[in-house]
């Protein structure tokens, strides 16, 4: 609650809304004690008195009644009616939603069908029909507005309930001995409260508007009782001659609703966990690059050589270094594998090469990406865009989410050729797309061209991903865990296709995986990452046979291998360090079995022995 309060206050607009709402509510609470003139006393001699005349602060209306007094009494009434209507709608709607979601099946169908029928009326028709039946009057308007808003709550709450009911923690609670009723009370409700509060706070303004509207039409409060809506309705006749009588109540409704909406948005933002994590930030087409000046670009015979690459995430004014001083190079036709546990910085490395890390929050803060003797990071957006998908292309981890679900396979394949080469005719591109599908072993490619991703299996989707990556005959393919989401047999096929096409076309490949066993067969060189650094690189076979870094050695020992009859894998004690609390010295030190106190003294520099390098003071002597 406290945190929530703070969050709302920190949000300036919401704070303004909260202040506005509090002032208005306070005023309407103390209205009876302000000693204002009776709002209903008619004095025809004072008709349409202008504001600030004769002690009438806001003037008088067409019957000579004091507008200030009527305004405050009307506000009181409007807020009260809106609030009660919202409470009624929220409670009935939530109960319906919870029951429908919790019991599912027939109860759900029945309840939701009735709600659907209610929603088949534009809301005011229903309100009008209800008022027509019950007769005009404020109470009836309140009932009408409440009924009209029930579906909104019911639907919202049902949706969330349904997804909660299917979640694992509910199943876990059942296994822990909870029955349905106690699940509802102790497991569901705590999770639903915030949903209901958000729905409530974002609709109450709307409800006040609607009741005011009915009164404006003359269907709500009846004279002499009057809320803001009927004040405005009565004043309308004199709109042109005496606008102040309309202006004042209209502005008041506006102020109330605006204040409530601002506050409601603040509450919603504070309660929405995704906003808290800053995940709803729109990412720029290219990562922010903020490097020190005078970058030197040494010539290289490699296809790509990366030097001292650094990328950090700036979250809440904190800088978290996701990758630190990453250097590697890939020759033409070579395959480099990057291996490491999750969070070690593999993906950030891969995406940084063409500025694809989401910014905000990412910033590339140093390093050079020398690709064919051009520093990619010094190019502008359009130049980098021309490299992406053309000279350097990507294959991503999850084939279920990385293809566009609404574009046909054919369109997605053709697009990648089209955006780099617009002069080709469609049918030529189509032919090329079909050929690509054949290259990745898709049976009946013509049909698949017109299919959509959801119609294909995971393995097929990933092969489409490969086809897209190959479409423009790139120099380098970056595959970020392309087989992690797949079954072993499918994985074997993907590896086979990738490897064969790479060799056929002489492509270079940057292959990322967390699985030592997978990279062993495909890569020439290997780089092992830990806590944002490459801690060891070298020819794959040599590193696997004789690791120089204790982490590499430990990683090999804890990766189980079928048919090895080594028994249980040997765990590495402890956890990878949090990136925001890295120490000066070796980041592996807390988990290392070769640790000596020198390891924590200063940053470990890269040692090189022939074609291998590593970051460890033991210099590779890891026996015993």
């Amino acid at each position, binding site marked *: 609650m406290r945190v929530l309060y703070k969050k709302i206050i920190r949000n300036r607009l919401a704070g303004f809304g909260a202040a506005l709402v509090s002032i208005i509510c306070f005023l309407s609470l103390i209205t009876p004690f302000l000693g204002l003139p009776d709002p209903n006393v008619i004095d025809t001699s004072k008709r349409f008195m202008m504001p600030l005349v004769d002690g009438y602060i806001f003037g008088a209306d067409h019957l000579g009644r004091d507008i200030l007094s009527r305004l405050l009494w009307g506000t009181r009434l409007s807020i009260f009616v809106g609030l009660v209507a919202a409470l009624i709608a929220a409670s009935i709607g939530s109960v319906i939603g919870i029951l429908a979601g919790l019991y599912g099946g027939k109860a759900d169908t029945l309840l939701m069908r009735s709600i659907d029928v209610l929603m088949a009326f534009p809301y005011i028709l229903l309100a009008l029909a209800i*008022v027509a039946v019950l007769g005009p009057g404020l109470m009836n308007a309140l009932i009408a507005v409440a009924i009209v808003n029930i579906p909104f709550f019911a639907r919202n709450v049902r949706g969330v309930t349904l997804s909660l009911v299917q979640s694992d923690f509910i199943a876990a609670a059942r296994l822990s001995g909870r029955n349905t009723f106690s699940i509802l009370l102790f497991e569901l409700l705590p999770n639903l409260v915030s949903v209901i509060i958000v729905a409530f706070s974002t609709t109450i303004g709307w409800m006040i508007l609607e009741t005011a509207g009915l009164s404006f039409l003359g269907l709500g409060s009846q004279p002499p009782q009057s809320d803001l809506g009927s004040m405005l309705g009565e004043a309308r006749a004199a709109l042109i001659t005496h606008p102040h009588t309309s202006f004042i109540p209209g*502005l008041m409704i*506006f102020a109330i609703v605006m204040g409530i909406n601002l506050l409601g948005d603040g509450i919603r933002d504070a309660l929405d966990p995704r906003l808290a994590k800053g995940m709803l930030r729109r*990412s720029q087409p290219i990562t922010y690059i903020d490097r020190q000046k005078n970058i030197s670009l040494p010539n290289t015979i490699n296809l790509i050589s990366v030097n001292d690459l650094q990328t950090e995430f700036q979250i809440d004014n904190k800088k978290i270094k996701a990758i630190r001083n990453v250097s590697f190079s890939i020759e033409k036709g070579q395959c480099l594998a990057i291996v490491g546990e999750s969070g070690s910085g593999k993906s950030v490395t891969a995406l940084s090469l063409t500025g694809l890390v989401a910014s905000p929050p990412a910033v590339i803060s140093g390093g050079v990406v020398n690709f064919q003797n051009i520093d990619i990071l010094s190019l502008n957006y359009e130049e980098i865009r021309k490299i992406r998908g053309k000279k350097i292309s990507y294959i991503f981890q999850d084939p279920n989410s990385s293809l566009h679900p609404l574009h046909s396979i054919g369109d997605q394949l053709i697009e990648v050729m089209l955006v780099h080469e617009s002069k080709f005719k469609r049918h030529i591109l189509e032919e090329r797309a079909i050929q690509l599908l054949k290259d990745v072993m898709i049976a009946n490619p013509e049909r698949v061209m017109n299919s959509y991703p959801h119609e294909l299996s995971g393995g097929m989707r990933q092969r489409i991903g490969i086809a897209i990556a190959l479409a423009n005959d790139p120099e380098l393919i970056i595959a970020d865990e392309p087989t992690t989401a797949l079954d072993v047999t499918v994985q074997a096929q993907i590896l086979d296709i990738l490897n064969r096409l790479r060799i056929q076309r002489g492509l270079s490949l940057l292959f990322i995986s967390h699985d030592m066993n997978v990279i062993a067969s495909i890569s020439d060189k290997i780089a092992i990452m830990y806590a944002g650094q490459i801690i060891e690189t070298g020819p794959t076979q040599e590193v696997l046979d004789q690791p120089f870094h204790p982490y590499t050695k430990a990683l090999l020992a804890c990766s189980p291998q079928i048919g090895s009859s080594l028994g249980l894998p040997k765990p590495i004690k402890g956890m990878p360090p949090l990136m925001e609390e890295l120490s000066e010295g070796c980041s592996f030190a807390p988990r290392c079995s070769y640790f000596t106190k020198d390891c924590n003294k200063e940053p470990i520099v890269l040692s090189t022995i022939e074609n291998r390098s590593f970051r460890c003071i033991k210099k590779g002597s890891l026996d015993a």
Partner: protein
Amino acid sequence: MPRYIFFRILSIIPVLLGLTLIVFIIMSLIPGDPATAILGSYATPENVARLNQQLGLDKPLFQRYFIWLSNLIQGDFGRSMSLNRPVIDEILERFSATLILSGTAFVLCSFIGILAGVISATRQYGLADKLITLTVLIGISIPSFFLGMMMILYFAVRLRWFPASGMYALYGGGDFIDLLNHLIMPAVALAIVAAGVIARLSRAAMLEVLRLDFIRTARAKGVPEKRVIIRHALRYSMVSILPILGLQAGFVLSGAVYIEIVFQWPGVGRMMVDAILARDIMLVQGGVLFVAACYVIFNIIVDVVQLWLDPRIRS
């Protein structure tokens, strides 16, 4: 897909039936005796009974429903007491006015709303975003009838740009330009609230979509950012924006009631409010049925468009 559309259109029938049933039930809940209402309080009991028989009111409820329904199907919506003419004639006359007003407002609000939402999302936290967010906030907080009144004061009375009320000029009007002249203010007033809601939800939808994996794929393919926004992000967002448009159509139809009153637009909404105040039940009932049916049909169209947009629900 045609199969689905066929079934979807077929499914209008039960919804419309449900609609008529609800309207019938609501209307039969109305206290008081229609016959007495028609004949006035001095009517003799015999006259009341005769009229009741004439109206079929002595039959059981469900039988009355079917009689009423078959009359509806034949286009007989009953007779308006206050206007003393068949309900259907009055509604048909008024309905075109409402359709012009809300149709224009709907097109306006969809277009402006989505455009504002997309701009706002792509320039998140930029100046354009802040301005749009503020406008949207004002738009969704201001009562449309108040907005309409202020527009009359400023644009009609003060600047004399547009006529303050009505659909056509009393003398010498009647052509398209005249209609347009009368239409602009009410249509804009009506569109602003709905546009605000659409803009806000489009912005949220776009932001949500812009961080999905396939957007990163599109960028990695070298797709130019404009195309990423429109062909990839907006295209996907439309799947969640479209149902909102469907809902907003209801809000536009609803808001039309206020706007018709403020601008004295001769539409169904104004007719219904007058009818309620005059206790002209037949007219209210006809109006409700007509507008609701129109809304249902509109939503079916939305569904079909949705189907065309989203291949995932096709199969």
